[in-house]
């Protein structure tokens, strides 16, 4: 039972490394393919880098715990994940509304669907990461 759990945790870590690597490669190819940088890129690149760095830290932290013979995730961290997920979900809803509204107010134009999706993914992602780190440092 314990070995199965540890194997599951190792699989999650390997998947996390795989997904982070794919995101980094996609980001690199995107930057190489389109040398012109728009305002959206300037805003989104730091957010994306923060998400990549934070997820790398979380993966490293979990791997370090497994190496020491401790679980990668326990009940406290699961609760932190649920709480951060809730905040990420709220951020996703409001960013879908807010990004378009903000664009109309600032540029008098609606955002393209792809940009709204990107804003939702980036904003909810960063809110999840920051909430996760904050609550895991706070205790619960």
């Amino acid at each position: 039972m314990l070995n199965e759990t540890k194997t599951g945790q190792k699989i999650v870590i390997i998947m996390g490394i795989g997904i982070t690597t794919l995101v980094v490669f996609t980001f690199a190819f995107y930057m190489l393919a389109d040398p012109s940088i728009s305002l959206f890129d300037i805003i989104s690149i730091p957010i994306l880098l923060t998400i990549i760095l934070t997820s790398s830290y979380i993966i490293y932290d979990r791997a370090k715990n497994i190496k020491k013979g401790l679980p990668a995730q326990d009940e406290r961290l699961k609760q932190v994940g649920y709480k951060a997920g809730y905040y990420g979900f709220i951020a996703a809803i409001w960013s879908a509304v807010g990004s378009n509204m903000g664009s109309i107010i600032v540029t008098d134009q609606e955002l393209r669907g792809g940009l709204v999706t990107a804003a939702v993914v980036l904003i909810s992602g960063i809110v999840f990461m920051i909430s996760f780190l904050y609550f895991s440092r706070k205790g619960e």
Partner: protein
Amino acid sequence: MKTRIKELRARYDLTQEDLAKKINVRRETIVFLEKGKYNPSLKLAHDVAKALKTTIEELFIFDD
């Protein structure tokens, strides 16, 4: 909420990591439990009490 985890851990000469390994949680969870910053589930409270050879009532002190 106050706890006697630190006191009992010292009595049995256990480090935070030793106790964490015994009850299969992360070391930080023990840190937060000792500081009273985390309210554990009944199962975790039971596991900690069992590992420190005491009861939940003896281990966790609630301020009314």
